[in-house]
């Protein structure tokens, strides 16, 4: 396993623990935590804070029928089993669940120049998509209106700030205007969540933006 150098920020990890993030962000963070022992340990810390606060909350009175209702529900539910989940190929299990299989099951759409994408989820809060950039190729330069998280699954890319390889996550906000370039060698596959549409700097990509849905 390669060493992960770029980690998820505290506010996003805490938001994931609290269950306050949009679905697209949950997907990227669950996938990142699957690849990063550091993120897993920090997440356990944030879960523990949630538990510790829970212990401190005052008790509330429940109606008399509450126990009866609970027992009825217990009878109606199947017992839970541990479902063994493992990374197959380059996709950890939460991503496999979102795609409905491994990397070969992705329904790519071409963006031209060999670049491809697949939107996995989009709602009013945020969208998640897979992006495929051929080795050595640049992504259109863009800035952000909101927060964008990019998790590398295969290959690596560089932008003005640094190099990002498998398991690395880059969090960009509106102040950032960057041009990621896939490294030579292996084609780069990333999982990206955005909570607002990207803003491309060039004229042509801006016209294309509504059609591409990114």
């Amino acid at each position, binding site marked *: 396993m390669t060493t992960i150098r770029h980690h998820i920020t505290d506010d996003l990890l805490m*938001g994931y623990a609290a269950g*306050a993030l949009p679905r697209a962000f949950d997907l990227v963070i669950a996938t990142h935590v699957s690849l990063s022992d550091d993120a897993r340990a920090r997440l356990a810390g944030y879960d523990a*804070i949630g538990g*510790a606060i829970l212990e401190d909350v005052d008790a509330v009175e429940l109606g008399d029928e509450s126990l009866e209702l609970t027992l009825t*529900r*217990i009878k109606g539910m199947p017992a*839970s089993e*541990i479902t063994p989940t493992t990374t197959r190929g380059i996709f950890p299990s939460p991503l496999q669940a979102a795609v409905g299989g491994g990397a070969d099951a992705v329904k790519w759409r071409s963006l031209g120049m060999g670049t491809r994408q697949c939107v996995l989820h989009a709602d009013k809060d945020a969208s998640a998509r897979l992006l495929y950039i051929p080795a050595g190729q640049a992504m259109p330069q863009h800035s952000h209106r909101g927060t964008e998280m990019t998790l590398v699954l295969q290959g690596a890319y560089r932008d003005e700030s640094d190099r990002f390889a498998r398991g690395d996550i880059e969090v960009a906000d509106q102040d950032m205007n960057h041009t990621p370039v896939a490294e030579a060698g292996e084609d780069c596959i990333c999982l990206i969540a955005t909570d607002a549409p990207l803003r491309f700097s060039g004229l042509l990509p801006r016209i294309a933006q509504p059609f591409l849905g990114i």
Partner: protein
Amino acid sequence: MQDVMATLWHKSHLYDPTRASVATWIFTIARNRKIDLLRKYARPEPEDLPWGHQDTPDQADVIALQQDSARLAEAIRTLPEKQRTLIERAYYGDLTHSEIAAETGLPLGTIKSRIRLALDRLRHAMT
């Protein structure tokens, strides 16, 4: 509430006392059930570690984790009021930091820095 209780009952054999306190385990299950039910989808969860579930937990690990949990609870109780309130809202108010900002009228920067200060204090208390 009844649904969370029923889920806890059915998942009780999966609880591992070396990995989380009972309160933390209940918290994570309640959070996930709430998302499943309110948003109508299964929350994306990280995959389990390969060594997974142990049937015979090491008692030393269990005690160490209980002590850590007690220290964490104490550290949260002794946070300055303003910091503790924001941490609680972040977990149990169902609000993002920006939404807390809109509701409290505090600037987003103030909220983020208070939460950061609170987390620093908790980290300090745990080392």
